[in-house]
């Protein structure tokens, strides 16, 4: 494997530092690093976390020799990956399929965000009211 270095992997707003190797622009993690950074483990050709399991596609070599290419992990999970080898950071986004399914269900996706005082507000806590949700910005 290539040079070992500390990388930051950002997933669902949480960032974790992890030891990784970079080889030909790819980010390679050990099974342990994958579990620590992202909570995924490979068992019998299936990639699992606490909530779900995703089977590897036919012919996938993910995890061979205990090595996990983060780009391949993202592709297996159908999630976008933004990677900057020089800055030693990677960001795992949410798949278009997951977002499209949620929006298509018409059940308003829930979120919790702070107000100016830092007090958190959760959309679903306002059930029972008609809500006009407005996204705006100072720009």
């Amino acid at each position: 494997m290539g040079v070992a270095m500390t990388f930051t992997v950002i997933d669902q707003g949480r960032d974790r530092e992890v030891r990784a190797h970079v080889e030909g622009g790819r980010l390679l993690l050990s099974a342990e690093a994958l579990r620590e950074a992202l909570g995924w483990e490979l068992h019998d050709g299936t990639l699992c976390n606490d909530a779900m399991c995703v089977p590897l596609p036919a012919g996938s070599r993910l995890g061979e020799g205990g090595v996990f290419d983060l780009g391949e992990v993202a592709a297996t999970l159908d999630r976008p990956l933004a990677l900057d080898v020089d800055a030693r950071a990677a960001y795992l986004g949410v798949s278009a399929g997951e977002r499209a399914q949620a929006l298509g269900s018409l059940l308003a996706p829930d979120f919790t965000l702070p107000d100016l005082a830092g007090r958190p507000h959760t959309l679903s806590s306002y059930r029972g009211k008609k809500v006009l949700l407005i996204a705006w910005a100072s720009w």
Partner: protein
Amino acid sequence: MWQALYEELRERDFLVIAVALDQSAEDARPWIEKAAPTYPALIDTQHVVADLYNVVNVPTALWIDERGRIVRPNDVVFGSDTFKHITNLESAKPLAAVRAWVRGETAGFAPADARALQTLPTALDQQARAEFGLAEWLARHGQRDAAERHFVRAGELAPHDFTIRRGSMPIRGIDPMGPQFREMLQTWVGGGRPYYRALPDTRG
């Protein structure tokens, strides 16, 4: 402006939730303090709502009913006519529609109609949001040059997404009302593409 609408309709179990897609609470603070809202005015520095709802510009408004269902998907709703000369969109019509909905005079869209009016995110849109997320994180951690690469990449992947292309400008030290924005806007609109994507009954 939203405060007046909220005050007018709050007795009818109506709520405004405003979400600022800004790089910091401090950027949004002067506007919020001036509006003095008694409804939730939230700060979304990491564009959580943009990602969840496929919001690609501001202002974007949705109607969510008492059961938490989207009954009117992403639309362009201005609280006033301040920018009407630029946007060509009047605020009166969509505000009247909100009033009628809250008073029970009209319903929102039926599910099939609401779905037909939705624009769902593509794989490219989500790749762009991942690039933006990485860039925003890098900028927050002092890696400006690396951040810039990914802000630019995000904008190339989703050129229609102005929460990325314009929304990143303050983070990158670019004036979001300045020449770079105006050039971006002219190129976009000059190609026959709308900057604001209002629903047909708001446009018409």
